Each structure stands twice: as structure tokens, then as C-alpha cells.
């Protein structure tokens, strides 16, 4: 854990990391342009509905998918970039070199996580604004502020899994392939683009809680579309928080902070 002595170092490092990320124009451009592109593409599907003949249920594809992206895109982006960065740290022996400096590897990583979480929250806000502009049924209410902590939770979950994947895979290429597969499964099974209400009965309940991001995305969707407050979504938020802890523990266990 971080001691009091390490905290000033961590803040300085976080500032440096934020500056570094801010200067990486390619990353920033991708962080800003990709949400705009995705929201714009889904806006083309405004007449499309998901339908479940058995229940007579109709779900607006545009509202559903864009709110899924509001909940998940920042986390997905964070996970992708973290996998790339963490496997590069390993491949280039960066943490080994940090180990012989006065900064601890954990301080270095914690600062990186802090800077990336802030970018995640900013991306979620940007996506929300874009969604409102292109006509998603956003329920304007003070409850929208709950998106900020929930977005940080989702982003930190993605970052934790990013570290875990970079730790489990031996090479950056293998990490990238594993991350692609994980991302595809989450997009499908966590209710990001396809409603889990349409899964077979038993599996629907499993998908709600047993897949990372599923609960936190549902909570964020309810806040955006229904104007739900923490009182209504506390259970999903708690499950999301649990997944964040699991991801961070997995990340710290799987990723060799100092051994290599």
C-alpha cells in the first residue's frame, strides 16, 4: 500500500502522467474522436428496435447502445491502452529500471492509474453530451452527477483487467489478442450492445452479476435514461465496486511489478 511518504511523489507523478497523456496527441485524438464517431454511427440506426416476441418487449437500439457506450467506452479505452502500456513496460524492462530509482513501481503505477481514470471520467462526460446532442432520451437531473464516480469505478475496473491481461500474456502481441477476445465477449454478454433481457431465463440473471461491467453499465443506463438516483441503483453500483476490487487484485497478482 502507499505510505504517507509516497503520496507527494505519487501526485507529482500523476501530474507528469497527465501532461504526458495530454501531449500524446494521437491518444487524445482517439479518446475524443472515437466516442463522437460511435455515437454518430448509432444515430444512423434511430429507426431500429430490438424486439422480444414472447414478452412483447421493444427496446430502442439507439438509446440502448449509446447508453451502453456511455457506461463502457471509457473503461474499454482504458483497458486497451493499459494493456498496450503495461505490456510495453514489461517488454522494455521499464519497471526494472524504476526499481533502482527512489520511486517505487507501485507509486509509478498508481499515478498512471490516477491520470487514466481522470481521462475516463472526461470521456464519459463527453459521450453523455454528444448523446444528448444527437437525441438520446437523456433524463436531465442532478442524478446525472452519479455518473462521475460510477465512470471512475468502470474505468478502474478496465485498468485492473488491463494489468491482469498484460501480466498473463507473455508478449505484447499475445496480450493484444487476449484483450480483443475479452472485449468482444464483454460487448456481447455484458449488455453493452445487446440486451441481456433476451438471454435464456437462467443466463439472464447470471449475466447481470457474473460479467464484469454488466452491473455498472446497467446502473449508468438507468441514471441516464430514467433519471434514477443512487437509492435505486445502489445494488448494481455495489456489484460494480466489487468487480473493480476483483480487477485490481487480479491486476496486482498477475502483473510482475518488480520481479522482472
Amino acid at each position, binding site marked *: 500500500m502507499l505510505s504517507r511518504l509516497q503520496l507527494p511523489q505519487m501526485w507529482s507523478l500523476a501530474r507528469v502522467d497527465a501532461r504526458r497523456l495530454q501531449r500524446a496527441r494521437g491518444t487524445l485524438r482517439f479518446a475524443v474522436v472515437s466516442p463522437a464517431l460511435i455515437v454518430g454511427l448509432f444515430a444512423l440506426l434511430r429507426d*431500429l428496435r*430490438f*424486439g422480444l*416476441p414472447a414478452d412483447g418487449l421493444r427496446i430502442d437500439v439507439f438509446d440502448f447502445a449509446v447508453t451502453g457506450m456511455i457506461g463502457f467506452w471509457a473503461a474499454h479505452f482504458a483497458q486497451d491502452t493499459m494493456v498496450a502500456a503495461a505490456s510495453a513496460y514489461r517488454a522494455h524492462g521499464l519497471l526494472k529500471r524504476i526499481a533502482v530509482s527512489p520511486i517505487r513501481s507501485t507509486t509509478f503505477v498508481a499515478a498512471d492509474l490516477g491520470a487514466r481514470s481522470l481521462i475516463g471520467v472526461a470521456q464519459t462526460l463527453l459521450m453523455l453530451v454528444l448523446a444528448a446532442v444527437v437525441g438520446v432520451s437523456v433524463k436531465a437531473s442532478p442524478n446525472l452527477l452519479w455518473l462521475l464516480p460510477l465512470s471512475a469505478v468502470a474505468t478502474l475496473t478496465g485498468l485492473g483487467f488491463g494489468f491482469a491481461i498484460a501480466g498473463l500474456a507473455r508478449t505484447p502481441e499475445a496480450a493484444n489478442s487476449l484483450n480483443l477476445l475479452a472485449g468482444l465477449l464483454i460487448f*456481447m454478454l455484458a449488455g453493452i450492445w*445487446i440486451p441481456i433481457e433476451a438471454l435464456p431465463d437462467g443466463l439472464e440473471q447470471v449475466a447481470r452479476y457474473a460479467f464484469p461491467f454488466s452491473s455498472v453499465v446497467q446502473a449508468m443506463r438507468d441514471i441516464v435514461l430514467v433519471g434514477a438516483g443512487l437509492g435505486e441503483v445502489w445494488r448494481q453500483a455495489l456489484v460494480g465496486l466489487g468487480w473493480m476490487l476483483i480487477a485490481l487484485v487480479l491486476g496486482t497478482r498477475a502483473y510482475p511489478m518488480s520481479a522482472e
Partner: protein
Amino acid sequence: MRAWGRLVIASGRMVYRSRDTLLVGLVQPLILIGLIALWKQLRFHTGAGAVDFFSFVATGFAAYGVVGVAQHSMVGAAADYRVQGVLKRVAVTPISPAAFVSAQVVARVGLSVLQVAATLAAAAALGAGIRPSPNLVSVLPLAALTALMGMSLAFVIAGVALDGASITDFGRQLGVASAWLLALLLVASRTYRFTEE
């Protein structure tokens, strides 16, 4: 020609011996088709009618799987040839680099065709609305064509990334690819029923 034929066979053996390639090429699409089948009761509704979600996504995935895997593996291989100087070394043997690369491409097209057949068979077995008819055989040359398009794009990507070539250097090839794309879109719009009603 005979030497090229041997090269194709050798490249084919190389592709099929690689467990990773087979796993990504055949097992992964089948797992994904199995997953998509979980949404069998879901429909897409538009003003014009309803479309079965599983049939729509599974057939789309059969085509995408081909392009994705062909392109992904070819970008890796093409970049590797350049970085490791494989083509330079091949150039001093009786085999021309073009013959070497085309043999690799043909072997991968074979894998792509197999992949489409396996994906469509799995989708049909799981209940997608695929009508068994002799016309299904015509999907195979289309799969080969799509895979070739994906691999051409892979060489463009590897060329731009490694040689710093400009996209305008590939004007003629991109023109041909666009013409094929247009032709396929026209055929698609004539042959596909977008709604059940």
C-alpha cells in the same frame, strides 16, 4: 508453375500446422456463433418489418470472420517478412518473392473458405434461417473474394506502416477493390431479403 504449386502446398501445410492459426480461424468463430445463438428469440424491428437477430448477425459474422482473420494474419505475416528480411533472402533463390507471397495468400484463402463453410454449418445447426440449397455453394467463391480483399488491405496496411508509403501510391489497387465492393453491394441488395415480411 509446378514449383508454385509445391509452394502453395507447403504454405498450406505451414498454415494448418500452426495451432494458433487454426484456433483463431476455426474454433473462435464457432464459439462466437454459439454465443450469438443465445439471443435466438431476439428480433430487429424497423418500419419495414422484422429481422431475426441470430440469422442476421451469424451470417454477417461468417463474412466478417473471414476478412478479419485473413487480414489480421496477413498483416502480421507481411510485416514479419519485411522486418526479418525474408523476401530479400527469397530473392536470391530460384523462387521469386511474388510467387512466395502469392502461395501464402492462396493457402490462407483456403483456410478462409473452410472457415466460412464451418461457421455457416454451425449457424444452420443452431437454428439460423439458412436455407440448404445448391446455391449455398456460390458462397464459397464469394468467401475467397472477400478474403482476398481483406488480404490486399493487409498488404496496404503493412506497406503504409513499414515503408511510409502514401495511400495514393495504391490508387489503382484501391480503385479495383472499390469496384469489387460496389459490385458486391449491388449483388447483396438484389439477393438479400432485409425483412421477414
